[in-house]
C-alpha cells in the first residue's frame, strides 16, 4: 500500500551480510534528512544463517501502518532471497540484484539493476559483512531516496568505530556502482 509520499524498501539476503544493520542505517539516514521512517526485520530461526530481511518505510509525515505492504524497491543479495521475494514484487517496483548471487537475467523485469555488490564488499573489507552498506551506496546513487551526507553520517554512527572507515569506503564504492549504471 505504498503511495503518496510513502516509500517502501526491502533489503534481503543471507545472514552475515549486514542486511539488518543496513536497514537501520537507511531508516536513521531518513530521520537525519528530516523525514520519518520505520524499520522492521524478520526474527526467529529464519534470521540465523538462512534468509535475512530488513524493511524500511520512509515518508514525509507520520507513518500509519509501520510494516511494508507494497514494495517500491527490493534489493536481493542472495539467490534464496531472490526466489522468495521477487515473485511477489509489483511490476513498477525497482529491483536491485547482486549479479553473482543471482545468475541470469531471465525474469524479464524492466526495472532490474544488476551490480557486483557482494564482490565489492569482499574487495573492500574482505568479508560479506559490509554487503548491506555497499547496497545502500547503490540505492542512494540509483534512487536518490536519501541524502548522501545523511547516509554517511548514519553509517558513521551505527557501525563500530574501528569499522567506520571501511564502511564509509564500502558506501562510496556502492555509490560508484550505482552512478555507473
Amino acid at each position, binding site marked *: *500500500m505504498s503511495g503518496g509520499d510513502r516509500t517502501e524498501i526491502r533489503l534481503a539476503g543471507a545472514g552475515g551480510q549486514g542486511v539488518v544493520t543496513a536497514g*537501520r542505517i537507511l*531508516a*536513521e539516514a*531518513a*530521520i537525519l534528512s528530516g523525514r*520519518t*521512517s*520505520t*524499520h*522492521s*526485520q*524478520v*526474527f*526467529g530461526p529464519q534470521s540465523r544463517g538462512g534468509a535475512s530481511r530488513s524493511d524500511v518505510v520512509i515518508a514525509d509525515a507520520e*507513518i*500509519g*501502518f*509501520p*510494516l511494508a*505492504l507494497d514494495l517500491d524497491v527490493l534489493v536481493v543479495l542472495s539467490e534464496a532471497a531472490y526466489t522468495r521475494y521477487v515473485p511477489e514484487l509489483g511490476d513498477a517496483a525497482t529491483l536491485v540484484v547482486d549479479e553473482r548471487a543471482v545468475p541470469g537475467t531471465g525474469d524479464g523485469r524492466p526495472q532490474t539493476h544488476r551490480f557486483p555488490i557482494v564482490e565489492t564488499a569482499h574487495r573492500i573489507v574482505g568479508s560479506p559483512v559490509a554487503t548491506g552498506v555497499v547496497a545502500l551506496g547503490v540505492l542512494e546513487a540509483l534512487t536518490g531516496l536519501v541524502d548522501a551526507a545523511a547516509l554517511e553520517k548514519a553509517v558513521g554512527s551505527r557501525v563500530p568505530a574501528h569499522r567506520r572507515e571501511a564502511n564509509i569506503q564500502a558506501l562510496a564504492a556502492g555509490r560508484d556502482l550505482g552512478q555507473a549504471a
Partner: protein
Amino acid sequence: MTEARLIQGNQACAEGALAAGCRFFAGYPITPSSEIAEHLARSLPGAGGTFVQMEDEIASLGAVIGASVGGMKAMTATSGPGFSLMQEHIGYAAMAEVPCVVVDVMRGGPSTGLPTSPSQGDVMQARWGTHGGHPAIVLAPASVAEVFELTVRAFNLAERFHTPVTVVFDEVIGHTRESVVLPDHVDIVDRRRPDGPVEGFLPKAAAADDITPLPAFGDGYRYHLTGLVYDERGFPTTDPTQTGALLERLHRKVDAYSPEIEDAETFMTEDADVIVFAYGIVARAAREAVRLAREEGVRAGLFRPVTLWPFPAKALEAAVGAARTVIAAEMNHGQMIHEVERVAASTAEIVPHLRVDGEPISPAELLAKLRERAAAQTGGRG
C-alpha cells in the same frame, strides 16, 4: 523535546520505565520481550537501580513485588508463556495492594506457540488470568511512541492505586523501530506513604478515597502483607464484614476511578456507518483502511481502546452512535469482541475479523471488509 530517534518498541518500554522512576527489574528473557530486559540490564545499574535475571517468571514477579514493598518502582516483562506463570503473583499483588508493572509482549499461542509472530491472544488473560476475581488495569499501546507513554502511565496508575498494572502489546509493536521524539520530561506519580506516628499504625484502616497508605519495609512502620483476606492491621481474617469491605474496596479502587483511568481514541466516527474496533498494531492497519475507505466514499470510522481494562464502554457506545456495523478486528479467535457485543450489539451488527495465523492484519484486508459491509448496508436499504 529531544531529537527524533529510531527506536524499537521494546526499547521505548525500557526507556519509559526508567523515565517513570523504575529502579528494579526482575525477569526471565523470552521472545519477543527480551530487548526490554536487555536494555534495562544495561541502563539500570548506571541509574542506581537493580537488574536481576531470575530462574523463572514466577520468581520474577515475586522479586518485583518484594522490591516494590521495599519502596522501589519495579517491573517485569515477558510474553505469553511467562505471563501464564505470573498469574498467581498478579493476584497476590492485587490482593496485597502492591504497585507493580507487568509487560506482556504478546506472541502466537497457546502454549509456546509462535515465539516470533504477533498475536493479541492474551487480552482476556490480562483481565481474568488470575483466580478469585479482582480489578484490572490493562493498557494497549499501538505505536513505539505510545509504548513509552503508556509504560510511564502504567507506573503512575500502579503508584496511584497500589495495584498491578499490565501493558500488553504484540510482537510487531515490540520489534518494529519507529522514528520517535521522546519527551525529556514526564509527570510521575508516587505512591501514598503514611505520615502519622509509627506507633499504632493501621495500614489498612478505612480511607475516604479507598487508597490506603503504603509504607516501605524499613520505613519504621510495622505492617503485615498477605494474600489472605486481611483486616485493618493487615492480618488474616475470615470475618464476613471485613471480608466484604476489603473486596468491595479493592474493586472500587478501579471501578470508581474508571472515568479517570479509561482512555480511547476515535477516528472519523462522527458520521460513520461502519466502525472498525481495533487496538494495538491492528488499529494502525484499521486507521489506514478507514482513511482509504473514506477516499472511496465509504463512511468508515475507527474506535481504538487504549485501556483494554477498564473497558471504555461509554466511549464505545458514544462512538458507535448511529453506525449500523462494527467490525471487531483482533489477532486472536475473538476476545474483546465480547465486550463490543455487550456494549453495541443492541444497536449495531457486530462482525468479527479475526486472524490467528501469526500474520498481522493488513490495511488491505480491512479495507476489503469495510467495502463489503458498506455494500451490504446499501443492499439492505434497497
